[in-house]
């Protein structure tokens, strides 16, 4: 599909068109933090930012999501019988999503949707109804390491459109059919603009100097990595909090709980995290991952060994660097993976 050009003075019209029949969200500066917010018009669009503190996975997999409701009254008609929550009514568009986050959603697709049975209706519904318009990273952060985990600052996987900021205009890379529809009517890109975008991509990729090595991680058997001595030191200062998992765009573990109040009842799912001892605790009191070391190891093994083994080499990490920035005790995933690889 031919790439397009969107002049910055045309952004208003583009956003307005996007908003027809859709809710549009984009990163915005609220207080001193960059957070995902509803986008009213192109004026509110933030172009100079690194990334949001929390990933956009919440749009597809909300931290708290009501899955079904029931009448908590055995005598009522259909009482105690679970009824699914309605699907998303209005389609959405996420504008200026970073390529790493879009890639993360594609990785999660492989987990949430596998076959007839493993087919998360809630995730699928929101994914199908959401248009992803990426904003390529021209200035990756020092904590970014996307290029070493199957991703990159101008990566296109998972996106419908990718905007590359060329100064006074964007090169609009058309990636999907849905994207083509959203970009219909925009002028086609010229060769010079394509070249400029390619240069920006090469420059951005070159800025990412720290990364992780995966060759030995891939080559080694599970038990060799599992029993490696490195975990004794990695786990030492870990607090077993949920910061890394909750800010991570690919962490997807959840808990399901029932709640009642009077005659209302619901089944709700909440993000959960493998760092919690409760996560794996059996009713009998036996805990398969009973120590902090087991739990810390699980997180890294899951992302960098188990997911690649099961999902055709896709890694459960896109190198966004959020956990590196937010971990209260600076457990740097790059250091850990390089030790696994070392």
């Amino acid at each position, binding site marked *: 599909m031919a790439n397009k050009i969107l002049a910055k003075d045309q952004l208003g019209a583009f956003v307005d068109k996007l908003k027809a029949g859709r809710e549009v969200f984009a990163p915005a500066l609220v207080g001193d933090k960059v957070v995902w917010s509803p986008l009213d018009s192109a004026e509110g669009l933030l172009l100079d930012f690194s990334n949001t503190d929390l990933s956009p996975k919440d749009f597809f997999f909300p931290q708290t999501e009501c899955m079904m409701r029931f009448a908590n009254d055995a005598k009522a008609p259909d009482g105690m019988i679970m009824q699914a929550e309605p699907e998303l009514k209005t389609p959405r568009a996420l504008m200026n999503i970073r390529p790493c986050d879009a890639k993360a959603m594609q990785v999660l697709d492989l987990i949430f949707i596998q076959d007839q049975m493993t087919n998360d209706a809630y995730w699928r519904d929101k994914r199908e109804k959401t248009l992803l318009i990426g904003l390529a990273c021209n200035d990756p952060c020092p904590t970014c390491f996307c290029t070493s985990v199957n991703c990159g600052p101008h990566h296109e996987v998972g996106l419908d459109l990718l905007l590359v900021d060329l100064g006074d205009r964007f090169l609009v890379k058309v990636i999907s059919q849905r994207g083509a529809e959203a970009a219909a009517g925009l002028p086609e890109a010229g060769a010079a603009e394509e070249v400029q975008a390619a240069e920006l991509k090469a420059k951005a990729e070159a800025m990412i100097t720290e990364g992780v090595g995966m060759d030995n991680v891939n080559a080694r058997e599970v*038990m060799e990595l599992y029993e490696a001595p490195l975990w004794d030191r990695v786990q030492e200062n870990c607090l077993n909090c949920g910061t890394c998992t909750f800010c991570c765009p690919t962490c997807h573990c*959840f808990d399901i709980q029932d709640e009642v109040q009077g005659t209302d009842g619901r*089944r709700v799912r909440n993000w959960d995290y*493998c760092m919690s001892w409760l996560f794996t605790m059996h009713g009998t009191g036996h805990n398969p991952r009973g120590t902090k070391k087991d739990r810390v190891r699980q997180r890294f093994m899951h992302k960098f060994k188990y997911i690649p083994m099961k999902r055709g080499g896709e890694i459960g990490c896109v190198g966004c660097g959020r956990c590196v920035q937010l971990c209260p005790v600076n457990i740097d995933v790059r250091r850990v993976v390089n030790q696994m690889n070392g």
Partner: protein
Amino acid sequence: MRNTYIPYPVRIKDTRVETEDKQLKSFWLEFMNPADADAFAYTPGQFAELSVSGYGEIPIGIASSPTEGQDLLFTVNKVGVVSNRLHNMKAGDVMGVRGPLGNSYPLKASEGKNIVIVAGGFAVTTLRSTMIWLLDPANRAKYGEITFIYGARTPGMLLYTDEWTSWQQSGQANVNVTIDREAPGWTGLVGFVPSVTEQVAPKPDNAVALICGPPVMIKFTQPVFDKLGWKPEQIVMSLENRMKCGIGICGRCNVGPEYVCKDGPVFTKAQLDKLPREY
């Protein structure tokens, strides 16, 4: 496409307290919509999430066999929020069932072979399902000798006594039921499952062993099979871990890369030997 988190509504048809300590209770469940019963096509070894609205879900092995009709049997140990509530429910109450989940015992692949079944405590549930399925006239001829080894703490803790007694009497299977210590009125075998297994000494030739029991039983039974010359590929075990989604997403039941709920709960010893012991 169906939302696989929504349980099928079922009604409790019958209940029975199974053991002397009243910790184990069986529930026969009947689908409220006949179409759901058809959709719920299962094989022995699979499990389901029992859903009690307002309390939550628990993963429980299916104790009935599809050869017994469309009603489902579950035997539930009383340990947590959901199972405690379930024990207080009675015939006629409405609840939910989600599944069938997980893989099953390799019965198809074991055709023409001798089958050794080893069960400990209330883990006998899915193996009851297996036995009923194997002894069904449509299936029995496809298999060689069937050896059933089952142990519990006391005679009062044994499940499904009528059934294994009838298997014994029919001569269709070699049934060995044991209790841990001598008890008044008990004339059968006495001793732990591993030592009884050693006495029975099933031969590894053209055979497969299906084992389900508490971790301590599994731990001590495995070496017995090793000693008797069984290969890791012939030993099949069923695991359990804490679960929520039951369909391989929520992330808590995994043992290495394998999800017990989706890739399991049935694994061969050969598979498990390559995985962390996080179960």
